[in-house]
């Protein structure tokens, strides 16, 4: 359990740290591509999401932590012979 928590924390913190580097995100880059090809283009749909309320790096961190926890659970159970 401790290992799982540690792995999740490391993965989450790593994802947050990488998101904070500040290099242009892939989403922004794709949007730039579209605007360059179709100046004035407006997306025809935009849905609200948690990202509006919670910083994106935190959400990516939570996703990475969830993934790492899942991996740890699988390893632990596999180590016990399934």
């Amino acid at each position, binding site marked *: 359990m401790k290992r799982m928590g540690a792995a999740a924390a490391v*993965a989450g913190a*790593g*994802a947050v740290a*990488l*998101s904070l*580097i500040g*290099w*242009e*995100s*892939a*989403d922004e*880059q*794709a*949007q*730039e*591509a*579209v*605007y*360059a*090809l*179709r100046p004035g283009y407006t*997306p*025809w*749909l*935009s*849905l609200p*999401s*948690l*990202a*509006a309320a919670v910083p*994106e790096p935190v*959400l*990516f*961190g939570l*996703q*990475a932590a*969830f*993934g*790492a*926890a*899942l*991996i*740890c*659970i*699988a*390893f632990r*159970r*596999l*180590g*016990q*012979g*399934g």
Partner: protein
Amino acid sequence: MADWPQRANVHITEGYLPITHCAAWAGACALPVAWSFRRLDLGAMPQQRRLVVAAAAGFLFALTALKLPSVAGSSSHPTGIALGTILLGPAAMPVLALLVLVFQALLLAHGGLTTLGANLFSLGVIGPMVVWLVWKAAGAMRLSEPTSVVLATMAGSTGTYVAASLQLALAFPDDAGGVLASFGRFAGIFAATQIPVAVVEAFFTLALLRALHGATRRAVAS
């Protein structure tokens, strides 16, 4: 010719594809997803294989959350598809990719529900198919397992981005050169960012695959 930006992206953002394209890509995914659901019958699956599915899903969640810095001040996400494809086959991946993409679309505003079909087709169908083909070809050529894993992962990661480039090019053809020119520019732009990320992803995949083999062997030996 339009003034192009420096990079492209595997997750096409909400509302960015014409509605006809959204419908077409969703339709193209319908059969692979149905097939994947049928093949991933967790209830009928041995416990050990279920745990491998969990590890592959965890790897997909963890890796797609990492925004890895690449060259020239750009960053990109690994795809995380190779581990599951190698261990479970390409049929498992559409469902696992669907879970990740829905999670990201709803919670992170990354990708989108309207572009879910397009993103799923590149990440959950094309990428795993490329991984599988290269993995099998490497096996037929009797390459070592580490080499095969690295090659398959890099090919799958790159293939996913090539598919995304084609989807964007089809939606936004260049005024002068059409879809082909648009595709060439998108593919050329993302390659500089994605190929270094694919190399890093390949070594992540290899490390986890080895750890999984070790855990399984220890369980069998105990």
